[in-house]
């Protein structure tokens, strides 16, 4: 809402307040003033001039040579290019020495050999936006009414000696979508009265009801409809002061009748509509829900198809307006209109909202209806409009109005105790402090033993419950005056859940291992959404995405991390170690919401270790990635429950990928990105993993139980085994661990040999086995017994021979 500082003074005394100090006070009390625009910023030396003579420039077709009286001793010659300049006009003249917006200084000049002492200005040249300039002057200079005084400051005539406050209104404060509403707010802040416009009625012999009948067939959506009739109207431009006020508020002037309806919209917050009575095609207005597929051509010359939940004004047969949104072209006020019907109505917000949304027509009117207008101003707004039309368009207002009224207006009456206010705010206001706040707001208030009974004016439809009154009290009392305390009361233990603690531990471990946390988008393309998914399903799609690239919810994180790797690689950042913990989204049959499963994923590429001056470097390989996972499982106490299984997965290197199993269930994978994919994405050798963190965090973990530090020495035996080349180390390890019995405490591989010294199809694996008994010193015999069982088992189960 744009509020002219000068206009506001019609309703509330602003003496002692500059626009800036007023803005600060308004902001502090709850409505943010987003800016104060000084209309005359960058403007100087523009006066009203009278074009005494105009003739064609002798040397230029498109230029005019004008003699203009600018109130000086003698008229001056000005060359003007505007097509509409003519003798006898009153115009705005930027005299020599004047400054126009953009620091454009007016100097004496010669144009094609003719002297020019100034410039005749269009409104654009005076800094007014083109969209706000009446059509007649859109492409030329502005012509003033004849009664303006020559030599006068043109800026004040145009209302540019004003400042405009831009209010950022929250949806609850639609009461301030009107000058009167703002006046009440300012009046409350300053403790000053609000003056209403005076409405004078002249008696007329003819009655409105003789001209028109109104029938409302949808009274729930339209509980109040008032029609005023004004005849013998002469359509012309509205008075200049009205035009300038409309422009300051951001509305383009049209003609006197339309301008007056807009003026009232700004003054009262009540949207009005004017019909040309003679073009209506009937003597009745019927307000009803539209028929499905019914059509109307609106004022903007667009034919629109209506739906049965749109409210329309009809002439009994066809629609003449979409209620609260836009009038129809068929009944539009035009230059030859003589009889006008002014509609002042109360339309329900929902029905207006529906139509304005469906037709993508958001107007000053629809915005106000949607948020709710003050039902008590409807009639008065209509009366005031009728009066202004008779005043400025020369019409006669017919006696009375035609009304359909099923509206029950009951102002909210809310009781609240002083204690409640102070308890909710933590303040210690007194009865009289609170009472004075309600009085300043011009709410009805009575006090009985510290209980306030407040009658809220209908203009403040946002106030319906106690809490709303508490807010009014708080903002008028001032938030700076509210004390600072901390909640007392029940003591609650603060903590993270077990799951949250595990997540933090997982992060620490991954970061300790050298990985940086990335956060990527959950929304991705259809193609990427399902790549590398652990659980392949159709992705969840947005109904109306902003782009294909962000149209689906991801089922995996790896594709997003590969994007990050690609981005960094493209910037010469080759060694990367990244992880992300975040949700993936799985569509569920028969469920409204997808399952959100937290995953942990990582991408590692480039050098893992690098210490160049010592000549050491090591590239990332499968075992680096696996080592990171082992550390993670160890941190979470899952090592014993985890298995790896060679596996093939789309997009992954078929020989360098493992499924990760938790208690036999696949929970993810680790491995190298398939070389083809690497090439497509322009990546170097990159290793990735993705696991269901949810599964990991939910797996049962035994509590930590101390086991005694061994007091007796251990005995280590190493064995080198020859096995088939296809045998996997993990299997041998398992066989050894099982066969070794209680005494075997540790098995670790220390050599793998697949070289030419081996028989074809064979390889050698060497293990170190550590035996000990917590109760006694082991003898060689004990160990040999256990060790032989191991050898027998590997031979029997894996065909392994001791390497000679």
């Amino acid at each position: 809402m744009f509020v002219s500082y000068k206009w506001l003074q019609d309703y509330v005394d602003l003496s002692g307040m500059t626009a800036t100090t007023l803005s600060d006070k308004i902001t502090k009390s709850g409505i943010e003033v987003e800016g104060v625009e000084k209309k005359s910023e960058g403007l100087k030396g523009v006066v009203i001039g009278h074009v005494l003579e105009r003739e064609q420039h002798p040397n230029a077709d498109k230029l005019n040579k004008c003699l203009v009286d600018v109130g000086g001793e003698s008229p001056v010659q000005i060359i003007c290019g505007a097509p509409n300049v003519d003798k006898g006009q009153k115009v705005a003249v930027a005299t020599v020495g004047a400054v126009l917006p953009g620091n454009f200084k007016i100097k004496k000049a010669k144009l094609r050999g003719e002297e020019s002492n100034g410039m005749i200005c269009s409104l654009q040249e005076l800094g007014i936006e083109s969209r706000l300039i009446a059509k007649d002057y859109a492409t030329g200079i502005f012509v003033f009414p004849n009664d303006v005084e020559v030599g006068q400051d043109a800026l004040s005539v145009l209302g540019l000696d004003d400042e405009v406050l831009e209010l950022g209104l929250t949806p609850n404060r639609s009461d301030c979508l009107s000058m009167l509403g703002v006046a009440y707010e300012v009046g409350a802040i300053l403790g000053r009265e609000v003056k209403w416009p005076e409405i004078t009625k002249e008696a007329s012999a003819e009655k409105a009801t003789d001209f028109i009948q109104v029938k409302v067939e949808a009274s729930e959506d339209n509980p109040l409809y008032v029609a005023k009739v004004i005849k013998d109207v002469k359509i012309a431009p509205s008075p200049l002061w009205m035009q300038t006020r409309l422009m300051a508020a951001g509305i383009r002037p049209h003609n006197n009748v339309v301008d007056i309806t807009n003026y009232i919209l700004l003054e009262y917050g009540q949207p009005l509509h004017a019909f040309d009575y003679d073009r209506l095609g009937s003597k009745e207005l019927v307000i009803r829900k539209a028929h499905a597929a019914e059509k109307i051509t609106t004022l903007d010359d667009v034919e629109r198809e209506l739906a049965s939940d749109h409210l329309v004004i009809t002439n009994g047969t066809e629609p003449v307006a979409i209620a609260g949104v836009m009038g129809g072209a068929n009944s539009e006020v035009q230059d030859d209109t003589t009889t006008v019907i002014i509609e002042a109505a109360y339309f329900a917000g929902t029905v207006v909202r529906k139509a304005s949304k469906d037709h993508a027509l958001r107007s000053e009117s629809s915005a106000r209806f949607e948020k709710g207008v003050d039902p008590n101003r409807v009639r008065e707004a209509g009366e005031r409009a009728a009066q202004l039309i008779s005043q400025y368009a020369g019409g006669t207002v017919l006696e009375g109005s035609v009304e359909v009224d099923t509206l029950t207006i009951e102002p909210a009456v809310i009781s609240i105790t002083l204690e409640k206010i102070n308890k909710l705010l933590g303040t210690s206001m007194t009865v009289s402090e609170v009472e004075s706040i309600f009085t300043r707001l011009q709410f009805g208030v009575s006090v009985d033993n510290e209980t306030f009974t407040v009658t809220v004016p209908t203009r403040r439809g946002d106030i319906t419950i106690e809490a709303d009154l508490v807010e009014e009290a708080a903002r008028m009392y001032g938030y700076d005056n509210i004390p600072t305390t901390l909640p007392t009361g029940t003591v609650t233990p603060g903590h993270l859940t077990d799951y949250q603690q595990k997540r933090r531990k997982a992060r620490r471990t991954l970061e300790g291992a050298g990985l940086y946390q990335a956060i990527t988008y959950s929304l991705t393309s259809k193609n990427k959404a399902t790549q590398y998914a652990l659980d392949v399903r159709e992705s969840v799609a947005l109904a109306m995405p902003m782009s294909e690239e962000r149209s689906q919810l991801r089922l995996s994180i790896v594709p997003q991390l590969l994007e990050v790797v690609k981005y960094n690689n493209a910037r010469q950042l080759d060694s990367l170690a990244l992880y992300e913990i975040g949700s993936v989204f799985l569509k569920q049959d028969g469920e409204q919401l997808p399952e959100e499963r937290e995953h942990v994923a990582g991408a590692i590429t480039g050098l893992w270790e690098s210490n160049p001056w010592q000549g050491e470097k090591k590239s990332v390989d499968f075992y680096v990635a696996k080592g990171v996972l082992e550390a993670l499982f160890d941190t979470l106490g899952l090592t014993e429950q985890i298995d790896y299984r060679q596996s093939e997965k789309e997009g992954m290197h078929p020989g360098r990928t493992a499924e990760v199993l938790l208690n036999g269930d696949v929970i993810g994978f680790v491995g190298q990105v398939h070389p083809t994919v690497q090439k497509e994405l322009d990546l170097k050798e990159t290793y990735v993993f993705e696991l269901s963190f949810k599964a990991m965090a939910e797996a049962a973990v035994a509590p930590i139980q101390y086991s005694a530090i061994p007091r007796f020495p251990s005995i280590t035996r190493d064995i080198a085994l020859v096995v088939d080349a296809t045998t996997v180390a993990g299997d041998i390890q398992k066989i050894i661990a099982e066969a070794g019995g209680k005494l075997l405490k540790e098995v670790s591989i220390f050599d793998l040999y697949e070289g030419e010294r081996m028989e074809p199809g064979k390889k050698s694996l060497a293990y170190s086995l550590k035996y000990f008994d917590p109760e006694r010193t082991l003898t060689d015999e004990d160990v040999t017994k256990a060790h032989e069982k191991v050898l027998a088992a590997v031979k029997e189960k894996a065909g392994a021979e001791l390497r000679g």
Partner: protein
Amino acid sequence: MQERLQELQAEALQKVAEASELKELNDIRVAYLGKKGPITEVLRGMGKLSAEERPKMGALVNVVREEIASKIEEKQQVLEEAAVHAKLAVEKIDVTLPGRPVNKGNHHPLTRVIEEVEDLFIGMGYTVAEGPEVETDFYNFEALNLPKSHPARDMQDSFYITEETLMRTHTSPVQARTMEKHKGQGPVKIICPGKVYRRDNDDATHSHQFMQIEGLVIDENISMSDLKGTLEVFAKQVFGKEREIRLRPSFFPFTEPSVEIDISCKICGGKGCSVCKGTGWIEVLGGGIVHPNVLEMAGFDSKKYSGFAFGIGVERIAMLKYGVDDIRHFYTNDVRFLTQFNRHES
């Protein structure tokens, strides 16, 4: 015989003094003091002496032996020390060369902010509540006093999936779900961090995905002054002890009264600068007293209970705290950005 001994002693001591290596010294020891050495030979020749002279000579032999042995010992220590020194001199390295790099990673700056805030509130008795990122219209809007027709819905253009489900536009639905679980029984003290989504084009100050932390306290006797105090603790912890806060009236459908909370500008200390647009204050939070409709919808008796709620934009905090000038940095994951947040900051 005596003379011979003295000669040997002088000779041996001379050699000891001249020895420059441990091996040489050992040779001297073997040569003079060994079983085949000259002194042993002298001892053997003692048989020819008289019974009176024998003990005298024996004593003299011992004195000579001990003298030589002790000098060897002394010299040995000197040579050993020298050998150690020589070895250490050879082992000298250039300590200014860089150390062996240790791999280290770290949190994303947004996680850093979230954990700092979580820990602060956990210390004040809060628990951390989480919820789904895809929400029902009910929890995202209706349970928060935003019925379908509410005009404030325009304020948050959302990503709908179906008519009834959408990407949550704030973490407030977690508050609604938590309240519901409490079945009308206070107290509730939670903070809810998480990702949220709005229909915004990504640019320097907008992101279609971003993070929020919301807080909610419900108990008997919770007041606006408690919110003010709590957020003052927050401001001082996160932005520094010197910070002050200011409340301005505002509007949110789920709180009444509603406030916006400004924090005094850290850059200029409140005098006014470009970061705070000359006001000395920076808008960081929104909050207020929980709307009685929200309490009632979740099963709390609004006559008995009251509460406050607040919401913080995590990116906004990180941007202010670390001077980040483009919100997209948080989601691009350029490692030159990520690696800037891996150290402690007091």
